[in-house]
């Protein structure tokens, strides 16, 4: 069984992001980039399935600029067998990525696509769901437990107020939540071996996909600063302020 894992190169979670002065986006020049943490969980899960003898091959895919190769090498250092880079300088939106992944799924025929539930840069939380629709495959999002056997996957997912367990037939798309697993640290020998694993580069045009953005970003701004609160003397004053100042009563 083959597993396909899409991985995205994002601003490292430790970096305090800054909005560009012209409001056109977030400043990514000179900023540390790494693999989206949810995708790291996805790679870890796929590698564990391979180690358990369930999967036979784990293919990591990244869509974006040439530097995404580093992200693929990280995935291969964790244990993915090979990587595919869909290289483009276009700013990719979820639908474009989902179409690229569809083209790769048609070609690679994986039984499961395990992806992060969202990327920490735009928090879109759309790509997995769109891919599932484009492929006509079942989806199980926000997985906190995954068991795969004989053409089926049993997925426990995190929902408001508890856990829900679904059984889906394969092929399918599974998206990972934070508690699915704790990704391992890549070992030094595996980091070195990752350099020798195959990494194929294709262009969106090779896959017949038009990745032109469909959405326009109008403005990016910092969240408004919270102003300091005031202590009220008693309930009467609180009610008075809510009525006359905040005008919510």
């Amino acid at each position, binding site marked *: 069984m083959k597993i396909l894992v899409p991985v995205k190169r994002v601003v490292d979670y*430790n970096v305090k992001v800054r909005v560009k002065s012209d409001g056109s986006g977030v400043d990514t*020049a*000179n900023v*540390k980039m*790494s693999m989206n943490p949810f995708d790291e969980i996805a790679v870890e899960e796929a590698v564990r399935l391979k180690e358990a003898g369930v999967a036979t091959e784990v293919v990591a895919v990244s869509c974006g600029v040439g530097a995404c190769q*580093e992200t693929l*090498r*990280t995935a291969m*250092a964790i244990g993915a067998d090979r990587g595919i880079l869909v290289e483009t300088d276009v700013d990719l939106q979820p639908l474009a990525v989902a179409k690229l992944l569809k083209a790769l799924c048609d070609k690679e025929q994986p039984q499961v696509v395990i992806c992060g539930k969202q990327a920490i840069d735009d928090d879109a939380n759309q790509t997995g769901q769109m891919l599932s629709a484009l492929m006509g495959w079942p989806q199980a999002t926000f997985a906190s437990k995954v068991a795969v056997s004989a053409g089926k996957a049993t997925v426990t997912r995190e929902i408001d107020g508890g856990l829900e367990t679904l059984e889906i037939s394969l092929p399918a798309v599974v998206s990972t939540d934070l508690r699915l697993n704790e990704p391992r*640290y*890549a*070992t*030094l*020998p595996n*980091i*070195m071996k*990752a*350099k020798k694993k195959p990494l194929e580069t294709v262009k969106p045009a090779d896959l017949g996909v038009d990745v032109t953005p469909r959405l326009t970003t109008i403005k990016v701004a910092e969240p408004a600063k919270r102003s300091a609160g005031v202590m009220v003397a008693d309930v009467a004053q609180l009610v008075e302020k809510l009525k006359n100042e905040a005008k919510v009563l």
Partner: protein
Amino acid sequence: MSTYVAPVKDMLFAMNELAGLQEIVGLPGNEDVSSDLVEAILDEAGKFASEVVDPLNKVGDKQGNKWNNGVVTTADGFKEAYATFCETGWNGMPASTEFGGQGLPVTVSTAVLEMWKSASISFSLCQMLTLGAVEAIAHHGSDELKATFLPNMVSGKWTGTMNLTEPQAGSDLAAIRSKAEPRGDGSYAISGTKIFITWGEHDMAENIIHLVLARLPDAPPGVKGISLFIAPKFLVNADGSLGERNDLICASIEHKMGIHGSATAVMSFGDNGGAIGYLVGEPNRGLEYMFTMMNHARLNVGLEGVGVSERSYQHALAYARERIQGKIIGDKSGEKKPILHHPDVRRMLMDMKSRTEAGRAIAYYVAGCMDRAHSHPDADVRAANQRRLELLTPVVKGWCTENAQGITWNGVQVHGGMGFIEETGAAQYMRDARIITIYEGTTAIQANDLIGRKTAKEGGKSMQQLLADIAETGSALRASGNAQLKAIAEALGDGIAALDEATNWLIANYDANPQAAAAGSVPFLKLTGIVVGGWLMARSAAVAAERLDAADGDFYKAKIATASYFAQHVIPEANSYRDAIVGGAESVLALEEALF
């Protein structure tokens, strides 16, 4: 609290532009290494240092180690972190592939080791001591000893120690008294007391392999009668399994000023008839064997200076960005702003940053010399690099560790009153840094080596060659037509003149007036550090000036500003050191003993 973030970009810059990484990855034996692999290694190591090692540092400081009847328990989390450290292969990284290491160039392992040292000196010491012992056994031990001990030490399953110091034998190892009596079966019975044994006892590994300096019954007195032995905590059976407990025990652990996370043990050998030990190499050559590891060990402690300085800087910078205090002089807005805007806080941070980067520059440059001295196909290049390496090793050790004192001191100062409060964490770096000018040879021992064996005794040839190289950089900068680079070159020129004059004075006076020469030895070491640091910062600025239009132009802009700061504020110290060396010995030696 801040979190350590490995300065991968600056590390790669120093590796590529100063150590010569491109050339090094092309040397024979480095076929598996490429520069993008190096970046991947640094990224992963940086992640491990931030997420696993850095959080241990404060816990180790607060809890320390617990001693109970010979058993030492490490602080919470150390055992687990060490296990992961070994599983991921970081422990054995610098060791040769023959014993399970990765055999990477010293330049690469130097950057990775700096990260462990930044994150926690205490934690990093266990690996450092183990690898030092590995090196000694690999170079001088028999095949049988190598096969028995090395694979498990490289993997980290067993750790190693260095048992040199005794209560009466500190810097003067000739005074060692520990004894080794032949037991008739090829092994020896070792007895004696050793002190200051870093990671001498702990609960992180199943066995501890002690390297011990001791005297054979017929040994001549002094340094020529010291032999090197392996004495494992648990004896190793023929099949490799662990056997009986050896007759050696951790008698106590020390109460220290810093590095509380690592146990510093008093080791007692042979209380019940003698600890079983195995001779490494030939009898009476122990000290000589120890010295073959000295370049590495001293480079590594110098690197501790760089590491702890970097960490202290990051911590102070994070605070300076957040702490809002007072209006800024000359700022018309009249707003209260983070203290980073105050000119004197900037001065302190620039001082910390520029000295740290200069320290990293020297340490990595010397690591590059080590790689070329070891692997370059041309014998002349090997020899030239070996000379440069030997000349600068005491400078890396002495200067980077001395610098760390002022840097970590400023790290406290930036915090103001909160720096004096342990909770902020700034003080720990200062306390931890305090040992590094002392162990592995005090600054005076380094300076003694620099003025004697490395300079005066060879007529200053290596130093003159170095000065010629520095002058060449100065000329190139002057010819560049760039005003900033020219200004740096002017300052560097003063530094060159000061070091040249001091060197000539030293050569003229070393034999005739050894006390006067020794009185100026530490100033001479610091003078050398400043000029070499200034040289490498100048070279960095020259590279950066070419890249200001690159996408990451801000990094290079900062590089030039940092080099300019170093040229304006640090290089001028060279003159006062020169004056102290050339004309200041008399007052050092003037007082009769009774007048102190």
